[in-house]
């Protein structure tokens, strides 16, 4: 009980202490509080994991949160296989990144603030994954959004950073809007929002419909899609992906932890968590899969031409998240979670690596101004290579196992499955290409930056490189918990471990097919490397040529399909304009205020008019009286 409570509590304490006393007392000692806290919850997480493997799943209520009429929800934790894995991922990566940040954020004015927010984030993320009901999940969900808002806007004096933070929060609100309604609908459907109750009688409402604006829809589908809205927002899937690339305004450790490894995968976690519901709705499943597949390829294409090193990785994150949803959509939940878990390591590694590069170049992020760094920063280069091999799915590294699993499951998923598999494979090709492009541009060739930059080039300090190495180890070996049966009987240990929560994949295929898929993915991985090699090593002038050749395509990709512009033109600007010109300017000031001030003005006018009657002439007054009397008499006669 206490143990589990402590897991999220430690980071929370670290936050409270740092935020209250950091400014005046702790200052640059902030990590002395934050790191032990998160490390502590890592250790606790491991022990929790042990408990689960030992077979006792925990579901505890701490206290009643909201009680109103028949609505009842409590603060409580559910620690099962899925949660325990997430706990490991979150706490382990956090710990490493905290350590990394000590070096990376060294000397920053807001050092204490940084660790405070980071701790708060870890707390929120842990609440998110440990929740045992939807509302508490929603709590963590919004809380991590809050932290990402703070951390993206960490350097708030930069307008770009401030805007990005705001954008991230508001875009997410669109998703949460749906998510919230989903939660409400779940309660109204199942009379409870505790996972256990809901999932246990998930099937009870199959076939029921809900009437929206006169048309009936399948109830469960509606619920699932509403929940998925949240996932789309949080995990930056189409069409709400726009916030994630901008989120790179935040410090690199943030990008690594929040916008690669953990928070953005919350959507995946949530969908996996709700698999009993999703399983009941084909429509929902297909939506998830297709959105995932499209996002994967969509983001990958953008990634091809970006020059900002972090943005490339950001788009690759979006695309990888697409992969995960693809997996969930085809019912391979464990595969999705597996990829989530491996991805956490190699993507964190990529980000931190790029962070190390940026650090060395004094906040230079444009790859066109880099090059030939491998001789200056060998370690960074090495880990980069490992990460890239892993993400591109070279056999033997973590990425390979998970990605292959996903493609295979997709392939088995009927016609839509085949199509998705195709998407996935193409995306893999692109991924491999831009990942290598990144490597070649950054580390090969000769340095294209300024002289004093070159002068200061150096490998990053231990405190930065050591976590990189740890992550590298993860990026290599993390995959070995999920070796496909083809290569090793009962190799898919993670799948089996998660089975109690996520169930077994629906369909099994032949070895031949599996081989085929595997080969395909390996092939495209190499293909991608080859093209990149041709273009950036053999003939560095080629990229320009190609760019010229497909100018429109290039522009389209380079401008990210103009999605931001589209939203700004069709949504943001109109609303702002309307609210200013129409709502405030016309309705409020003209109409309502017009009436409110008009009536008194009218009365005033009457007043000034009627006082003229009082002429001051005696005879007029007498006349008034006489006429009054006459009028009454006339009135009387009229009445008769």
């Amino acid at each position, binding site marked *: 009980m206490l143990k589990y409570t402590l897991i999220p509590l430690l980071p929370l304490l670290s936050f409270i202490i740092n935020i209250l006393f950091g400014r005046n007392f702790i200052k640059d000692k902030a990590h002395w509080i934050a790191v032990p806290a998160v490390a502590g919850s890592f250790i606790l997480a491991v022990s929790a994991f042990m408990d689960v493997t030992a077979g006792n799943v925990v579901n505890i209520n701490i206290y009643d949160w909201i009680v109103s009429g028949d609505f009842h929800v409590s603060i409580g934790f559910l620690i099962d296989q899925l949660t325990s894995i997430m706990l490991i991922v979150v706490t382990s990566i956090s710990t490493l990144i905290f350590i990394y940040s000590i070096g990376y954020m060294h000397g920053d004015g807001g050092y204490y603030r940084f660790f405070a927010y980071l701790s708060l984030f870890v707390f929120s993320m842990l609440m998110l994954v440990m929740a045992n009901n939807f509302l508490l999940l929603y709590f963590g969900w919004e809380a991590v959004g809050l932290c990402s808002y703070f951390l993206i806007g960490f350097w708030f004096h930069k307008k770009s950073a401030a805007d990005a933070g705001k954008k991230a929060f508001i875009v997410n609100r669109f998703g949460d809007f749906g998510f919230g309604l989903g939660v409400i609908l779940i309660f109204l459907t199942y009379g409870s929002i505790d996972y256990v109750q809901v999932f246990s009688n998930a099937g009870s409402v199959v076939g029921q419909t809900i009437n929206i604006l006169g048309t009936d829809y399948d109830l469960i589908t509606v619920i699932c899609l509403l929940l998925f809205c949240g996932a789309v927002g949080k995990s930056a899937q189409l069409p709400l992906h726009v916030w994630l690339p901008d989120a790179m305004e935040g410090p690199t450790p943030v990008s690594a932890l929040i916008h690669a490894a953990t928070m953005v995968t919350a959507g995946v976690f949530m969908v996996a968590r709700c698999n009993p519901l999703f399983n009941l709705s084909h429509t929902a499943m297909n939506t998830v899969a297709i959105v995932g597949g499209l996002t994967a390829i969509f983001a990958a294409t953008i990634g091809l031409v970006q020059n900002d090193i972090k943005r490339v990785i950001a788009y690759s994150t979006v695309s990888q998240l697409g992969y995960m949803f693809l997996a969930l959509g085809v019912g391979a939940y464990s595969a999705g979670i597996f990829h989530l878990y491996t991805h956490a390591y190699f993507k964190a590694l990529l980000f931190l690596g790029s962070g190390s590069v940026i650090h060395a170049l004094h906040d230079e992020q444009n790859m066109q101004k880099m090059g030939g760094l491998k001789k200056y920063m060998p370690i960074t280069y090495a880990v980069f290579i490992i990460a890239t091999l892993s993400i591109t799915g070279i056999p033997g590294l973590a990425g390979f196992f998970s990605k292959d699993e996903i493609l295979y499951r997709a392939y088995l998923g009927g016609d839509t499955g085949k199509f998705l598999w195709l998407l996935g494979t193409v995306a893999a090709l692109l991924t491999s290409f831009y990942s290598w492009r990144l490597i070649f541009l950054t580390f090969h060739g000769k340095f294209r930056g300024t002289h004093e930059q070159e002068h200061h080039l150096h490998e990053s300090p231990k405190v930065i490189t050591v976590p990189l190495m740890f992550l590298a180890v993860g990026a290599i070996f993390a995959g070995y918990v999920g070796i496909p049966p083809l290569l090793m009987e009962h190799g898919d240990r993670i799948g089996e471990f998660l089975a109690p929560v996520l169930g077994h994949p629906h369909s099994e295929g032949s070895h031949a097919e599996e081989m085929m898929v595997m080969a395909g993915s390996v092939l495209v991985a190499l293909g991608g490397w080859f093209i990149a090699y041709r273009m950036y090593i053999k003939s560095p002038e080629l990229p320009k040529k190609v760019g010229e050749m497909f100018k429109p395509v290039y522009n389209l990709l380079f401008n990210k399909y103009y999605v931001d512009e589209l939203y700004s033109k069709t949504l943001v600007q109109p609303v702002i304009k309307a609210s200013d010109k129409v709502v405030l300017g016309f309705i409020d000031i003209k109409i309502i205020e017009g009436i409110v001030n008009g009536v008194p003005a009218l009365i005033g006018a009457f007043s000034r008019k009627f*006082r003229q009657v*009082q002429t001051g002439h*005696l005879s007029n007054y*007498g006349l008034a009286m006489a006429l*009054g*009397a006459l009028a*009454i008499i006339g009135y*009387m006669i009229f009445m008769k």
Partner: protein
Amino acid sequence: METTDLVGLSGLRLIIPELTVICIALILLLLELIVKKKEVMAAVGIAGTLVALYGTFKLFGINGPGQAFANMFVLDGYANFFKLIFYVNVILTMCISLKYMAVEKASYGEYYALLLFSTSGMMIMASAADLIVLYLGLELMALSTYILAGLMRKQLRSNEAALKYFFLGAFSSAFLLYGISLTYGLTGTTNLKEIAASLQALNIADSPIVFLGLIFLIVSFGFKIALVPFHMWAPDVYEGAPTSITAFMSVGPKAAGFAVLGRVLFEAFGSMHVQWNAVLIPLAVITMAAGSVIALAQSNIKRMLAYSSIAHAGYMLLGIIAGTPGGLTSTVNYLMIYTFMNIGAFAVIIMLRREGFQGESIDDYMGLAKGHPLAAALMLIFMFSLTGIPPTAGFIGKFYVFMEAINSGHTNLAIIAVIFSVISAFFYLRIVMYMYMKDPKEDVVLTTSYSMNFALAITAVMVLVIGVFPSLLLDLVRVSIPG
């Protein structure tokens, strides 16, 4: 016995208060030859009034209405309560007059005598059970008031006010007489009770001629209580007359007018309730409307209060329209409250008047709260009371009247009334706004005196106390007017 009855000496007992007031008035006339200090005269006047007040309360005890002088004079709770109003009115007026009349250089001894004569006239009106007595009382009141209005004979405004008041007053009493003659002609009597009886007996309740007579009566009473369109004199006279007299007039004659209106309509023409209601309802509406609306545009506070008093006449009329004893009670109650708050307001106005400074323009109230917080606070109380905002007495008055109107099924009338009371709120607030929310142009010096402070204290306290503990007044009213 025979003989005494023939002379009606037994009746003398019932008119002791009137006699007292008149005697004091006469004494004051003589006293004027001896004493030069006006304070003395005021003191005597007030003392005399208090004696009369005491007399009235002794008589209050008599159970059932006491008749006298061949039933021409009646002494019942109704009359007594009105007399109470008149006493309060005249006492407070004397209190606020002292310094003021000196400032106006019009402190003549007969001023106090006239106040008392006028008051005695009102008292007679309140007790009149016969149209003849009613006429005499009314003229006694009116003639003295004409003079009072013109008392500042060096000032043209005062002259003009008196002139207009006189001519229009005479005009209206001509209407009254014509009405009386018609009524007399058809019913063969001038005694209110007998009129009612013969209306029944001869069954002429719906004869147009009778109604014509009634209309003429209503016109002349409407003149006294300033109903639109018989109100035209009010603003001019209120503005021109000495402020203390304005205060006096805004309460006394109005109350007296209501006294006779109520008595005549209820006692004599009770059977014609439907007809006279048909006349009074439109009158009430236009009175409230004109009063509240026209007041908005005024810049002279006396004139503004004149229109406000017109509007208030409209509200009071609701009680009469209700046509029930309760309604009458509510009107009387309103009048009592109105006495306090209105005289209070005028008292503050008077304080601003000093050598070479009129203090009648609303602008003169700018920033009064800075220099004289207490005076401003008092004015604030009176203004909110006139608006009818709790916890002031004004609210109780309005509430009671609306209550009776609604109870008798005139809900729409009540709604109209409340709407106009909101409109009227605007010009009362404007005074408050000027006092508290503007900066003073020149620093105002107040002319105060003990009597003035006394009057202010009484009025303010009563306004608040009645506002919080209405029962104190309500119970009194209800016993004096058996429901």
